[in-house]
């Protein structure tokens, strides 16, 4: 039997809309939703078929038999696994209180389900992966605009000039946005790209700044200086909506383009020529404020500077600028129901909200739970449920994390594949892959708000379950089932849509329900009051919240440390064919990119006798981890940096393809689990230095007998 199912991709967290063709319960074709993406899909999206077929994933619930990480598992039934978990959770709750349980996820449109579960259990400690992702950008936006990272959408297609500080659009792919950027370039728009190396995005640029690692802030300050000096800013917008502009003018005086050029290792005249272009293109210039900007010790201030550049452009709620996303209310639609449970009135274990008042309390900061595990202050942390989150791949130093997690009595991994954390956990609950499961309905804000849903395309191949069922089953056993008012997914859909006039069948035509036919108009420029949810209601250049936390809003620049002799700064990134640690074992993606390589500057390599393709040993500063991979020798990376793709060097024997393939960047980040940004909250993932040498494994002669 043939059928066609509209759904949402799950190969990465962009969750592109897809259409899936199925024949006799087998996926035969996956494409981008033709109504939204004109069929476009990336390599990972197509390789979803191999994910379903892959038998090197957990195929039934597993309970640990040997020591943690020993890889000895007992295969159990779902009721046995649920009972095992709930029995331990109840014991931990009675001994240490419900707050000693943490649940981490990968965020996204369904996180309210996980939040509801942990809140209903009695713990305020919901967290996510964002301390190694967008937290700095999010907090930077909050401190200036009073709205978070998702408080604006970027109208790329209509912009005249995109400025990307390391936002590698064509490797960390979002298909819709990537196409918008190419359309914009096709129309003659400009793209300025800033990075320590050339990337797939940089090669499409009209201007490229290869900067010294860790000097993005200097370049942004130099740009602000010149823009203010020449008066290329929206005076009217600033007068009306912005406070602290005079302080910015005073602060920026010393940061001239000549100074920035010297600091970053670029040409002053290139910066000045860039500002000429900005003058022509404003206000349709978008300074992308960063995606995964948990990198340098001043990344938060880099993001703030980029946000300030947008403010200077006056590009907010302007075609080709930053648009305020419209929601259900803007369409006169009352919205859908989402699972919810109020957060228990207990202070968070990570200190967010009481010790660190300037951070968003929503998901807190995952890495700050380690201190609580160690010190039991403010209280012990005794259980961690990782929903699709892999702390060992996401955060630095899994070696040290393991010792800290050993303070916990229960570690649970809910995931479609074996995560590094899951392999160390006590229980693995295998979630069905995105093609084998339904997910609740969600609202996608934008200029055309819509309801979206992921629908099951095929029945699960193995004894796996969808997340909605896993949480429902656990909730039932923990006596919190009233927060999960459904038994089947159809019940849940009906409950979500009740009173909206829509039914789940309405998604069948296109895969989504548009709440408006035409894009909603922009808010009027003189009626933006109330949009900026800062304490003063204005865009605050000097943030009251930061001041109260004893932090500077305009932080003087400090030059990054040079790597010690014989060492390099380790910089990581992504490729278009892999998603962090999720896809390395996917047969079709492994075929395209079986391991990562080490990018090294040609001159730096020559000094070490390293030639292109040689094996190199890369060693952590404290020698706690070393890996050997092939060198990619190029002049298009700064001599202070080496670069590799994140997610490799996995150590799960049952993933035979990715087992020990390549090198793990996070294991090389010695001492970096505690190196985080007190102002932005994120971990500084590009502050580690590593040793690089030509490996003795390069064959000199062959000895066989």
């Amino acid at each position: 039997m043939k059928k066609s199912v509209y759904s949402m991709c799950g190969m990465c967290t962009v969750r592109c809309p897809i259409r899936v063709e199925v024949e006799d319960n087998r996926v035969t074709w996956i494409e981008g939703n033709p109504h939204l993406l004109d069929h476009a899909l990336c390599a990972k999206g197509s390789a979803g078929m191999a994910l379903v077929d892959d038998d090197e994933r957990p195929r039934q619930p597993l309970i640990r038999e040997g020591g943690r990480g020993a890889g000895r598992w007992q295969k159990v039934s779902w009721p046995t696994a649920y009972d095992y978990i709930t029995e331990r959770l109840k014991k931990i709750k009675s001994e240490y209180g419900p707050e000693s349980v943490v649940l981490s996820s990968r965020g996204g449109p369904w996180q309210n389900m996980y939040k509801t579960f942990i809140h209903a259990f009695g713990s305020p400690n919901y967290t996510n992966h964002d301390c190694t992702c967008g937290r700095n950008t999010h907090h930077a936006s909050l401190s200036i605009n009073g709205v978070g990272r998702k408080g604006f959408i970027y109208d790329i297609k209509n912009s005249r000039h995109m400025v990307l500080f390391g936002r590698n659009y064509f490797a960390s792919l979002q298909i819709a946005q990537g196409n918008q950027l190419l359309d914009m370039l096709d129309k003659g728009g400009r793209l300025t790209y800033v990075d320590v190396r050339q990337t797939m995005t940089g090669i499409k640029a009209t201007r490229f700044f290869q900067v010294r690692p860790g000097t993005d802030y200097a370049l942004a300050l130099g740009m602000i200086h010149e823009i203010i000096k020449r008066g290329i800013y929206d005076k009217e917008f600033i007068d009306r909506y912005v406070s602290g502009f005079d302080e910015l003018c005073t602060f920026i005086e010393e940061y001239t383009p000549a100074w920035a050029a010297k600091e970053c290792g670029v040409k002053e005249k290139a910066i000045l020529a860039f500002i000429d272009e900005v003058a022509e293109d404003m206000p349709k210039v978008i300074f992308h404020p960063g995606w995964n900007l948990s990198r340098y010790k001043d990344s938060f201030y880099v993001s703030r500077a980029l946000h300030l550049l947008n403010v200077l452009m006056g590009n907010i709620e302007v075609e080709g600028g930053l648009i305020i996303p419209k929601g259900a209310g803007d369409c006169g639609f009352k919205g859908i129901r989402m699972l919810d449970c109020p957060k228990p009135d207990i202070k968070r274990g990570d200190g967010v909200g009481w010790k660190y008042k300037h951070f968003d309390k929503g998901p807190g900061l995952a890495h700050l739970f380690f201190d609580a595990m160690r010190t039991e202050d403010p209280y012990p942390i005794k259980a961690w449920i990782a929903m699709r989150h892999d702390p060992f791949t996401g955060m630095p130093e899994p070696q040290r994390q393991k010792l800290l997690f050993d303070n916990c009595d229960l570690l649970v991994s809910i995931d479609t594949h074996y995560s590094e954390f899951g392999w160390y956990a006590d229980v693995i609950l295998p979630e069905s892959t995105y093609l084998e499961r339904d997910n609740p309905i969600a609202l996608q804000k934008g200029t055309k708000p819509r309801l979206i849903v992921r629908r099951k395309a095929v029945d699960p191949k193995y004894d796996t379950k969808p997340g909605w069922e896993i949480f429902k089953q656990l909730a039932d056993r923990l006596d919190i089932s009233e927060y999960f008012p459904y038994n089947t997914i159809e019940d849940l859909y009906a409950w979500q849509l009740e009173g909206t006039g829509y039914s789940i069948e309405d998604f069948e035509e296109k895969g989504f329900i548009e709440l408006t036919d035409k894009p909603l108009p922009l808010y009027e420029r003189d009626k933006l009051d109330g949009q900026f949810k800062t304490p003063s209601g204005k865009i605050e250049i000097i943030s009251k919240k930061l001041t109260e936390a004893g932090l500077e809003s305009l932080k003087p620049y400090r030059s990054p440390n040079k790597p010690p002799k014989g060492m390099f700064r380790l910089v990581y990134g992504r490729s278009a064919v892999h998603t962090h640690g999720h896809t390395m074992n996917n047969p079709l993606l492994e075929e395209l990119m079986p391991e990562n390589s080490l990018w090294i500057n040609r001159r730096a390599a020559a000094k070490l006798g390293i030639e292109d393709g040689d094996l190199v040993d890369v060693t952590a500063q404290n020698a706690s981890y070393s890996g050997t991979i092939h060198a990619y020798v190029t002049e298009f990376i700064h001599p202070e940096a080496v670069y590799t793709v994140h997610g490799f060097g996995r150590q799960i024997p049952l993933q035979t393809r990715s087992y020990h393939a390549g090198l793990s960047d996070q294991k090389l980040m010695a001492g970096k689990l505690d190196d985080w940004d007190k102002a932005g909250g994120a971990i500084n993932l590009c502050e580690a230095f590593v040793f690089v040498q030509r490996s003795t494994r390069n064959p000199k002669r062959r000895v066989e007998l």
Partner: protein
Amino acid sequence: MNRYMIHLNSKRCIGCHGCEVHCKTNKRLPVGPILCEIDHEPLKPVKGVPKTEFSFRSCYHCDDPFCVPVCPTQAMVKREDGIVYVDQEKCIGCMACAGACPWTIPQLNPATGKAIKCDYCMDRLDQGLKPACVTKCTTHALKFVRLEVV
């Protein structure tokens, strides 16, 4: 006479290798054969920006293909519209076609033990659709072109 070709707009190509996987999954190919390939030149600075050009290669569907006459079982066929394809029923997997092809385009499918190559997804074409690689190209950089005699 060939009636089709696949054109790559290098300006839009982002070297994501999506086409290669779109092709493989459509034909249900295991690890091994890759029927179309994206490649690019080494980077070269152009006005301060390191740049490159991308190329796409599948099969040239030659006007006078070497692979067709060399096939001992007449499994390699050139259709009237120019498409050169492998008749899976007749193929014995001797790979004489690969040896005859200057670019070694035909590959062995280890799952079937037979030769496999780009056939412009002729089953899809015959349904009025476009080849898999073109249909799903991440950035719409690939175009399926119908050639006309002028």
